[in-house]
């Protein structure tokens, strides 16, 4: 296909791995959903890396970098909530 490269094909294939993570996020217990969310955030970070390289836009690397930092902070907030209030 025109415009596609190995990075974009890999990004498309990596989307499949989000399906099991999504199932766990939507159907599991509260603890399972938290673990599914953490897995999904790692996968989406890698997905953005592949898309950035696939589109040849080096400045877009800021997006996965920011997501990697923020997903840690967000995960810790959810962890705190699960431990104390939910």
């Amino acid at each position, binding site marked *: 296909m025109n415009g596609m*490269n*190995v*990075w974009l094909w*890999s990004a498309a*294939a*990596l989307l*499949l*791995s*989000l*399906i*099991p*993570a999504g*199932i*766990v996020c939507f159907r*599991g*217990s509260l*603890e*399972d959903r*938290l*673990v*599914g969310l*953490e*897995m999904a955030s*790692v*996968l989406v*970070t*890698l997905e953005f*890396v*592949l898309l950035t*390289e696939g589109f040849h836009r*080096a*400045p877009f*690397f*800021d997006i*996965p*970098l920011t997501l*990697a*930092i923020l*997903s*840690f902070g967000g*995960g*810790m907030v959810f*962890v*705190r909530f*699960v*431990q104390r209030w939910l």
Partner: protein
Amino acid sequence: MTHFPILTSVLLGLAVAVAIFFSLGMAIMADAFQRLHFGAVVAGISGPLIALAVWIEDNDAQSRIKIILIVLLLVFMNAILSHATARAIRVRQQGHWEIDPSEKIPIVSPDDKRAEEA
């Protein structure tokens, strides 16, 4: 522009295969403690494989530094987050973090192990 198409394809294929395999593995595990381990494999294997592919393909220093940062963040933050999550789940289920004597968790010291082996 692809400089090493076969090498890049192999690295990316491996990274994606590992991610899909361990994501599926996470979904079929029985409880949250078992599921927790699978994210570390994706962060620790798929991430470095993709970083290696980017390093090989991209001559831009900015891209190389950022991808290394991303993977280091993923690996180390995932370890911290997994520990915090396990702790939170245990506190939620048991009401405390410390080992209760009634749980009968075997704690074997290195000296005991050596005595058993002798």
